[in-house]
């Protein structure tokens, strides 16, 4: 049983890795909580559902459609709201509230279009189950694990081996200095938005293949992504991988011992404890500038 719990924790950690890395890319580059990320993720899941179940298209079409739609929505959010915030040099508080409003708005829209009923791709997609030595892993779970490795590897290569990545990292490091050497903050913002929205879409696709969908699925996801980003500390994208596996494992251990309803509570408790005792994160000791006044 313990082995199954650990495997489930690893799989949950993989999906959280994909989710959190996309979120942490924005968090570490522009230093704000991209709350609307949760609704981009939920949208990805619903687009997959609509393509696969309603449209009857194969799974990969669903993934493609999810990535395209989510990227467009992500860019629209960036251009209508975040661009103005950057121009106004808004505080992280304004970013958070503005992004939160967009999240609420789009969740309402999702509920309006798809209804509040639980949705699932089960009627047309029945995943294969592999069994090795009393451990059960479904096909999408296995691919989630591979997907997490591939996605982080690709992001690592982009960030550390290309000029594009260098630009992103320099904006993350010091936006005004990056500006002086001719790096356009706005184009970096667009590129990071595209990458992060694609991550949200892929995560939504994986989740749609495994779980039931309701318009509210994005909310716990944002909470978890925020916790993971705080664990990693600002400016540490790949620390998010560690955070993702910590949350994934803790959740599955909790579900093993407690009723399943408490699963989402794990991230909330970790978040509260972190905010109380280590707001700077576990992997770094540097607090984000605007939080340092008396902490």
């Amino acid at each position, binding site marked *: 049983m313990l082995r199954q719990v650990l495997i489930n924790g690893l799989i949950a950690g993989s999906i959280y890795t994909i989710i959190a890395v996309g979120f942490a890319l924005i968090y570490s580059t522009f230093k704000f909580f991209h709350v609307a990320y949760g609704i981009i993720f939920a949208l990805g899941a619903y687009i997959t559902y609509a393509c696969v179940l309603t449209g009857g298209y194969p799974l990969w079409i669903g993934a493609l459609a999810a990535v395209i739609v989510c990227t467009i929505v992500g860019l629209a959010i960036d251009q209508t709201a975040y661009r103005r915030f950057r121009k106004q040099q808004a505080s*992280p508080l304004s970013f958070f509230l503005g992004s939160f409003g967009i999240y609420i708005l789009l969740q309402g829209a999702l*509920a309006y279009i798809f209804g509040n009923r639980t949705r699932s791709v089960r009627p047309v997609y029945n995943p294969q189950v592999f069994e090795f030595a009393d451990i059960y892993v479904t096909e999408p779970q296995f691919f989630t694990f591979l997907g997490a490795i591939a996605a982080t590897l690709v992001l690592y290569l982009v960030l550390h081996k290309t000029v594009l990545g260098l630009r992103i990292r320099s904006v993350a490091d010091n936006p005004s200095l990056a500006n002086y050497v001719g790096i356009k903050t706005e184009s970096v913002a667009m590129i990071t938005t595209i990458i992060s929205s694609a991550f949200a879409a892929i995560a939504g696709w994986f989740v749609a293949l495994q779980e039931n969908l309701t318009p509210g699925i994005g909310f716990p996801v944002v909470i978890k992504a925020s916790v993971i980003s705080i664990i990693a500390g600002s400016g540490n994208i790949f620390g998010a991988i560690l955070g993702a596996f910590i949350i994934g494992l803790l959740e599955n251990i909790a579900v093993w011992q407690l009723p399943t309803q408490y699963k*989402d509570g794990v991230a909330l408790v970790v978040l509260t404890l972190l905010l109380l005792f280590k707001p700077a994160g576990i992997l770094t000791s540097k607090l984000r500038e605007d939080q340092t006044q*008396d902490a």
Partner: protein
Amino acid sequence: MLEYVTSILVFVAIYILFATSLSIAVGYTGLVSIGHAAFFAIGAYTSAILGTTLGLPFSLSLICAAISAGLFGAIASLPAIKLRGDFLLLGTLAFSQLITLILKNWTSVTNGDAGITNIPSPLYSWLNLGSVYSYLLIVLPITVICLWIQKVMLVAPFGRVLKAIRDNETSASSLGINVVSFKLRAFILSAAFSGLGGALYAHYVTFIKPDTFGINESVLVLIMVILGGGTSLRGIILSASILTIIPEALRFTYIPSAEIASIRQMIYGGLLTALIIFRPKVLSDLRK
């Protein structure tokens, strides 16, 4: 029709109380909370449970609701006094989500998702009025008294100290002000008054469940405070009235009620973002 108008007025009064309570934290002290529906819920549940299981009289359960919400406010203020800005928002969000989780799963006390029904509503039969009218006669004086208490406190040095902390924490503490103690008191007061509002709500609708006090309520009341200008009593009364009355207009359309809920959600979300985008000074305006 008169009954309908009266029932809206009851909600207006309750939301005015709720919004002014939040403004003690957000407007005066600069502690922006996006989880205040949790205190509203704690007040509502405390009063409802005391009223249904112990048969406590209305007046006593109102007081207990305020006290218990205040106690939870003290717990929630642990992160509130330490964090600022978006980290504080996350902290209050986590707190409210935890409260919802407890309300949903502590079934022996809260009856879980099914909620609490048949909450006793105080009917003052000697007034010889329908229950809606008599409830307005109960809610209005309570709201007015609470607003008066808040006003007196916030005009007094207490309120000015809070504003000083909000505007510049460092210089406030250099003047010998115990910042932590004042933030703590402001947050507890804000929570207690919100709890009182929640109790008034519970005894009016007579049925509450955890989903009644979700994130939408927190957002709505925060919009009321921001739109109302943060510290302006008149502004908040106006914005709370408008934002309570306008969604009611949706009921007169032919949209099914499930879709109305989604539309309301879209309105609240859009409004919050629009306020932040088009009135960029709105949050710093709270500082004027």
